[in-house]
Structures are given as structure tokens and as C-alpha cells.
């Protein structure tokens, strides 16, 4: 009897706590979702509807005109071809930059963790400093370097900048991951007759999937979302989508087309969103795998 009473009482408290918990969670979720919902419904309204309705009022009909306009005919500065060419520019920058910085980071981490040389720890420490240099600091020297290399205002130039800036992070990721791989594995492979790159390719890379996923997501997001390097180092034809989005929003003939702005913003954010949706679970798994052994 008394046992029952106690358990019933506890379950009442439990229920209340649970309700409170869910309320907090829902509020938090809404807090993060509302800006996106506003963007989405605004992009589906026409200009008249936006002016007359309020932020959260739903569109009368689904209207994708603004998406089409943002994609192919909105004006960004003086050209009026939408953001699609810049969207492609971004891919041309992001894909090689992610691939190269990930590969270089993997080899760096492999060397620093498993082929220690005199001063390799110092080398790693120096590399880490790279993670803490603010973007703005390197703008001028980088502009000069790109000029010397003859790749100023080109896609290759931007790829170069992102690789240089990203290698510090990718090296850190891979180094921490490889730190948990026993050195005896490399010794065994050396005795088996495998060389530096064979060991990397045949033994180390195949067990690196989690950290590769983490690095790719991280680098993809960083480089895709970059605005500062994009605006500073790109030419007129090589602007990434973030810069184009800025230009689109700031270019107005007549009234402000919020629906087109919103549609363009969502389009610009879609690739990173997609990466998270498809690889997000590896991201969390990989981060913890790097941090905690096993």
C-alpha cells in the first residue's frame, strides 16, 4: 500500500518534470526553427502578400516564382542571371579545396602521429597556431602572395587560400584520430615490406572513415559559408555564392523583393544542409571517436 502511494506520487512528479522538459525542448526547437520558417514562407509569397501580411502569415498559394527568379534571373550587381552561376562557382572552389585540404591533413596527421621525427611535436604545435589566426589578419599578405603566384582573382587562388587556411584544422583532426592507432601497426607493416604510402593507403586510410567524414563536413561548411575570402580574393566571374547572395540582397531596383532574397538565401544554404542531413550522424560519432579512445 505505502509502496504504491510512494510510487504514484513519484510518477506524478515525474510526469510534471517530463512535461516541463518537453516544453523547454519545444521552445528551444522553435527558437531555432522560426527564422528558417519565416524565410521559407516569405520565399513562397509574392511581394504584395509580404507587404500586407505579417511575418508568420502563411502564403495564400504555393508560389515558386521567387525561387526561379533567385536561381536564374535576379540581379546581383550589374549582371542579372540569378545566383546559379555563382552557385556553380562555389562548387568549383569547395570541391577541390575540401579534397586537397583533407588529403594534406590526413598525410600530415599520419606523419605527426605515426612517423615521428625530431621536432615533429614542435611542428604540430606551430601548425596549431594556424587554427587561431583570425581571417582578417592574413587578408593583405595573402593578396600579395596570390599576386606573386599569379592566381589573384581566380578560382585556383581561392582554392589555394582555403587549402592553406584549412590544413591547420584538418591536420589537427587527423593527428588526434591517428594518435589512437598503435604504432606497432606501422612497424608490422614495415616489416611486411610496405612503404610509407602503401601503409597509408592500404592500412591507415581504410580505418579513417569517421575522421574523413568529420573533416569533409567541417571543411565543406567552412569553405561554402566563407564570405570574407570570397569577397576579397575572387574576381567578377569567380565569386562564390555567398558573395553573390550579398550582392543580390543589396541590389534593388524599385521595391525590395524579400521573397527573392529569402529564396536565394535558402538555395545558398542547401548544400551544407544536405551534407549535414546525409553525414551528420558520422559527424558526432567521429568527433567523439577522436576525443575519447575506442
Amino acid at each position, binding site marked *: 500500500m505505502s509502496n504504491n502511494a510512494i510510487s504514484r506520487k513519484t510518477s506524478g512528479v515525474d510526469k510534471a518534470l517530463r512535461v516541463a522538459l518537453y516544453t523547454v525542448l519545444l521552445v528551444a526547437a522553435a527558437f531555432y526553427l522560426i527564422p528558417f520558417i519565416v524565410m521559407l514562407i516569405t520565399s513562397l509569397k509574392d511581394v504584395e502578400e509580404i507587404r500586407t501580411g505579417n511575418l508568420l502569415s502563411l502564403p495564400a498559394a504555393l508560389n515558386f516564382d521567387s525561387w526561379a527568379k533567385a536561381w536564374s534571373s535576379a540581379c546581383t550587381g550589374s549582371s542579372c542571371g540569378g545566383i546559379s552561376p555563382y552557385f556553380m562557382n562555389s562548387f568549383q572552389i569547395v570541391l577541390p579545396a575540401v579534397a586537397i585540404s583533407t588529403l594534406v591533413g590526413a598525410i600530415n596527421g599520419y606523419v605527426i602521429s605515426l612517423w615521428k621525427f625530431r621536432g615533429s611535436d614542435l611542428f604540430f604545435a606551430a601548425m596549431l597556431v594556424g587554427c587561431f589566426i583570425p581571417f582578417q589578419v592574413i587578408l593583405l599578405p595573402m593578396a600579395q602572395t596570390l599576386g606573386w603566384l599569379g592566381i589573384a582573382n581566380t578560382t585556383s587562388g581561392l582554392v589555394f587560400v582555403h587549402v592553406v587556411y584549412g590544413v591547420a584544422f584538418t591536420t589537427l583532426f587527423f593527428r588526434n584520430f591517428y594518435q589512437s592507432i*598503435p604504432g*606497432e*601497426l606501422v*612497424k*608490422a*607493416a*614495415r*616489416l*611486411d*615490406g*610496405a612503404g610509407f604510402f*602503401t601503409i597509408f593507403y*592500404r*592500412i591507415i586510410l*581504410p*580505418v579513417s572513415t569517421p575522421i574523413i567524414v568529420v573533416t569533409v563536413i567541417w571543411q565543406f561548411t567552412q569553405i561554402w559559408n566563407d564570405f570574407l575570402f570570397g569577397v576579397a580574393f575572387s574576381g567578377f566571374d569567380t565569386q562564390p555564392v555567398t558573395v553573390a547572395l550579398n550582392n543580390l540582397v543589396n541590389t534593388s531596383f524599385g521595391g525590395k523583393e524579400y521573397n527573392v532574397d529569402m529564396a536565394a538565401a535558402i538555395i545558398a544554404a542547401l548544400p551544407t544542409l544536405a551534407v549535414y542531413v546525409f553525414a551528420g550522424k558520422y559527424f558526432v560519432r567521429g568527433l567523439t571517436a577522436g576525443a575519447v579512445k575506442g
Partner: protein
Amino acid sequence: MANLVIDNVKKRYGNTEILKGINISIKTGEFLILVGPSGCGKSTLMNSIAGLEDVTEGRILIADKDVTYTSPKDRDIAMVFQSYALYPNMTVEQNISFGLEMRKVPKAERDVEVQRVAELLQISHLLDRKPAQLSGGQRQRVAMGRALARRPQLYLFDEPLSNLDAKLRVEMRTEIKKLHKKLGTTIVYVTHDQIEAMTLADRIAVMKDGQVQQLGTPQEIYDNPANLFVAGFMGSPAMNFIPAKVIEQNGTPMLELATSTTVALPFPKPEALKNYVGKTILLGLRPEMITEPQPHKEGQPFVTTTDVEVEVTEPMGADTMILTRVNDAEINCRSNPMYPAAAGSIIKMMFDTSKAVVFDQESGRRLDL
């Protein structure tokens, strides 16, 4: 199969000398064990033989060929690691054949070799599994299989059994011994477990502080330790060290032993004690040489029976260890479990000094060699 010569090998990191001139040579087919406490340099020596670490001075010869500066893969050796170091992304089969593949052995020959090794080690049913799906003992076998597949000149085992539980360790120990008998391979084996060393080795090199303290057969090392360290390290329970005063009786140096009464123990090589009369030396006596009185030994030379007080007894099944105190040193005696020895009681024990050894108290040097 090949012989191995380690010729005055030294290794320095900056100012610290890890190996201080190692000289070991073993014949083809011999099983050499490097044993010693952690930090004695045995693993460094092993890595130097493998070529995974450079030596500062000296030479290493495998099959009479100087390989001191040869890269690991060209030394024709295989190694079994403490962590097994199996390639986690490959199946057992791929693990075993990887070394062959790296040496460009054709696929058909590789398959034959994998089958041979798998049958030898009874792991044929595991060939498709990944290392993560294997138990400790199975991983151990695969690691050995990987070494065997290449048929190298020399096998190196780096503490291969220390990650196994006690029962499996004993099983695998026997297995390794059988394999060695069957294949007649030359093996260098590192361990810190002196029982492993005793049971497996043809010859043991006891190491400490980067030096070989003694190199010899297990029995030589057990019966005739070169110094106090070797005597104390080999054998379980360890040898008893009893500080004893050298006294002269009828012109013969004897060793004074104070228990409940005081007796003089004879020593097989009294001439070694001539210069120590009146001084105290360390008498080394293995536990099995201090037993309950055994009628058949009565009257033999170097056998002395005296009273001791029992402090603690530790029954081990086959024997009972009796802890007592002699000359103020705690000593272990191995007695028959039937022999009555209650803690606190005074009992008769028989000291057999025919195999006793003596050491200098300060330097640990053996005095009767």
C-alpha cells in the same frame, strides 16, 4: 633459418645510454629469450634487430650478413607484437598474405601459403573474419601466422603472451614451444616473465640497465647465476638471500646461521670464502633447498637440520611455502603439505647448501665462481 650475431651494440639517446655494448650470438634454430625488468633495454634491442631503430655503435649480423644499416623489410625477419598489430581493415587471410603480397608473390602461391599456415595454427575456419571478431587467443594465432607465412630467416616475438589471461598464456606458451620444435626456426623472444623465459628458451639473456647480466641455458642461469640480480630475478618464489657471517671451524670457513639456535652451515667451495672470514656475505639459497627433514638426505654432506620458527604458511597445493626468519632475513621454504607447520610453532627444517651460492653484500658480485 639463420644464426644471429649482436656485436657490441650500443644505443644512445642524447646522453642516456640505453644499450651499453651488447654481445650475443645464437646458432641457427636456437630459441633466445631476452628477459629483464621494464626499462632494461630488451625492447630497444629487439627493435634494433628488426631495424625499426638505428643503433649508435656496433654491428648486427643475420646469417653472417651485416644488416646493421639494412632497412627492416630487407632483413628477412618477421615479428609478433605485444598488441598483435593485426591490420584492422583486413580479413585474417589478407593479414597473413599481406607480407607476401608486398614481396610480389603471385596470388596462387599466396593462397597455398595461407592454407599451410592456417592449418598449422588451426585457424582455417577464421580466414574470412576481421581481427575485431576474434578472441585474444585467436588474434595471437593470426599474428603468429602472419610471421610464419613469409618463412623468414629470423622470428622476433615482443612479449607476445602478455595480453592473454593466465590460462591461455600457459597454453600458448606450450604451443609456441611445440611450433619451435617442429619448425626448427631461429627465434628471439622478449619477455619480462621469468617463467616464460625458463620454459621456452634454449638460451636466456638476462638484461638490466642496458647490459646483458648473464647469457646461458635456463638451467645454468637458475643454478649458477652470475650475480645477485640474476639470482633474484630468475625463479619463483625468488631465491632467499641470507646475510651470514663467515666463521672458521677447524680451518674451514663456514656460514653462521642464527635461528632459535645457532648453527654453522658448510659450503661446497670453502676456498671462495677464505678472504671473508669474520665478514658478512649474502648466502643465496633457493626455497626448494630448505625443506622438512628428508630421511634419505640425512647424513649427506652440506645438509644441516635445525629449528626454525614458523611465521606464516602459504599452502600452494603441491607444496606449502613456509615463511620463517633466519639471521633477521625473511626466507621462503618449500615443504611437503603434510609436514605439520603451524604458524608460531618451532619446527625442524633441513638446509641443503650443496647448491648454495654466495654474493658480496655491497656489489652483488658472485664470490664462488
